[in-house]
C-alpha cells in the first residue's frame, strides 16, 4: 500500500516537473499584479487568527507582510486549513503558504518546501505552578497527563522516566490535569500558548524548554522550489533567521522563546 502511494506521488511529481516550465514564473506574476497572495491559518492563535475586526493577524501574517514589503507589492491573505493548504498552492490560488505545516518526506514530494524552516513546534509540559518543575529530569516517577498514541510519549517515558497517564483526547487530558490527577500535561507546545493566557489556567505554567522539535516549512509550488521564487524565499527565510526577525515577531505575539529559533540563528550567524 505504502509503495503504491509513493509510486503515485512520484508519478504526480514527475508530471508536475515535466509540465513545470510551461507555467508562468510566480515571481514575475506577483510583480506584474502588484499583489502577493499568502495562505495562512485563521484558527491557530497566535500564529494566525482573526482579530475583533475580522482581519487575519498573528505570527504568520506578520511574516507574510514582510515578504510583500521586500517585493514592494500589496499583501493579500487567504485563510487556509490543513486539508486544503497544499491544494490551494498547487492550483495557484495562493503564491506562498505559511500555515503551521510540519515538514514530512511525503509533503516534500507534493509541494516545494523551503529550507530552512521558519519555526518548529515541539513537546512541552503545562504544569501546575506549585509543583515547581524546573527540568525534564524532574519528571522522573511523576504522573504526566498525555494524549494516547502521541509519538513522543514513549520517548519521554524512556528518557526521563515520567509516568505517562494518557487519555483519548484533549478534553480528557485537560480535565484530568485540572482535577489534579497529574502534575502536568505533555503535548505540542504551540497548543498551550493560547491556554496560558486564560484565567482558567492561572495556576499553571510552561516552565520547561521545548524538546523534540518538528520544523514548520513555508512552501511554494513544487516546480518552483529551485526556481527564482523558491530561491527568493530561501534567501528571505535565511535572512529572517540571521537578522532575528523571527524572534522579534515571536516576542510581539508573546510566544515563549523557541529553542529552534535560537539554534537556527546561531547557525546562520
Amino acid at each position, binding site marked *: 500500500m505504502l509503495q503504491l502511494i509513493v509510486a503515485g506521488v512520484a508519478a504526480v511529481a514527475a508530471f508536475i516537473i515535466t509540465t513545470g516550465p510551461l507555467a508562468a514564473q510566480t515571481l514575475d506574476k506577483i510583480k506584474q499584479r502588484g499583489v502577493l497572495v499568502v495562505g495562512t491559518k485563521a484558527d491557530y492563535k497566535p500564529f494566525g487568527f482573526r482579530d475583533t475586526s475580522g482581519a487575519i493577524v498573528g505570527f504568520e501574517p506578520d511574516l507574510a507582510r514582510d515578504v510583500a514589503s521586500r517585493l514592494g507589492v500589496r499583501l493579500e491573505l487567504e485563510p487556509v486549513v490543513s486539508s486544503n493548504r497544499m491544494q490551494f498552492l498547487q492550483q495557484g490560488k495562493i503564491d506562498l503558504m505559511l500555515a503551521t505545516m510540519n515538514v514530512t518526506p511525503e509533503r516534500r514530494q507534493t509541494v516545494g518546501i523551503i529550507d530552512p524552516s521558519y519555526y518548529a513546534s515541539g513537546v512541552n509540559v503545562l504544569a501546575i505552578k506549585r509543583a515547581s518543575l524546573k527540568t525534564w529530569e524532574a519528571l522522573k516517577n511523576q504522573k504526566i497527563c498525555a494524549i*494516547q498514541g502521541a509519538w513522543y510519549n514513549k520517548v519521554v517515558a524512556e528518557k526521563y522516566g515520567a509516568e505517562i497517564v*494518557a487519555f483519548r483526547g484533549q478534553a480528557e487530558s485537560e480535565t*484530568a490535569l485540572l482535577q489534579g490527577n497529574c502534575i502536568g500535561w505533555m503535548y505540542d507546545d504551540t497548543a498551550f500558548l493560547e491556554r496560558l493566557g486564560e484565567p482558567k489556567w492561572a495556576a499553571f505554567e510552561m516552565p520547561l524548554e521545548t524538546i523534540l522539535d518538528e520544523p514548520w516549512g513555508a512552501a511554494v509550488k513544487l516546480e518552483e522550489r529551485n526556481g527564482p521564487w523558491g530561491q527568493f524565499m530561501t534567501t528571505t527565510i535565511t535572512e529572517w533567521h540571521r537578522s532575528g526577525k523571527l524572534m522579534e515577531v515571536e516576542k510581539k505575539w508573546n510566544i515563549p522563546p523557541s529553542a529552534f529559533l535560537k539554534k537556527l540563528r546561531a547557525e546562520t550567524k
Partner: protein
Amino acid sequence: MDIQPVWDWFRVLHATTGIKLTIFYDAFDRARFFNGLLTSIRLMALCLVCSVAIGIVGAWVQGSRLKLLRALTQAYIQFFRNTPPLVQLYFFYFALGGYLRITNAAGLEVPVVSNFVWAVICLSLYAGAFNIEIFRAGIEAVPKETVDAAEALGYSRFKAYVYIILPLAFRISLPALNNNLVNLVKTTTIAYAIAVPEMLYVANQIWSDELNVAEMMNVLLVIYVSLVGVLVYVIGRWERALRIPGYTP
C-alpha cells in the same frame, strides 16, 4: 536461567519475517507490556471477588423485611444495570473524582481515589448489579419447603440464608454467574479510557509507537482467550466439585 536467547529469537523473527513483536525483544516494551498484563490480572481478580461479594450481600438484602433497604437495592441495580459501563467509569473518575480531593504534603490538591481503584469500584458495582439478580434467581429456585423446614428447625433468617438457602442457590446460579464473570473479565479493557495501564492501554501505546497493530491485536486476542479459558475452566471444575448427586431443583 538466561532467557536472553529467547528474546533475541523474536528479533530474528522480525528481521526474517517482518513480524514485529517488540514486546519480546525491546526491553522497554517488554517491561510495560508485562506490567500491563499484571495490572489486567489484578483488576480482573479484584473485580471478580468484589462483584460476587456484592451479589451475595445484595441478594440477601433484597429479601429484607425493611422496605427502604429493598428499595435502595432495587435503585442500585437499576442504575448500574441500565447505564453503559464506560459512562459510569467517566462519571466516577471525572465527575465524582473531581470533588474527592485532598491537599498533600507538597501543597498540591490530589485525588483521594486513584484511577485503578475507581476502575475496581465501578466494574465491581456494574457486575455486582447483575450478580444480585443472578443470585436472586437461584434463591427463588430453592424449594419453599426447604426454607420452611429451616424455619421450623429454629434457624434465623440470616442463618437460614447462610447455611441453607445460599449453598443451594449458589449451585443453581453458577452457570449464569459464569457468563457474567466472563463478561466482566472482558469489560476490564474499558479501564483504558481513564488511563489505567492495563493490557489494551499498553498495547495501544505500543502499536502507536511501533506501528505493529496487527501483531499486537493478535497478542491481545491470544491472551484474552487464555485468561477467559482459565476462568471458565476453574468455574467449571468448581461447579462439578459442588454438585450434589441426585439434587435437581
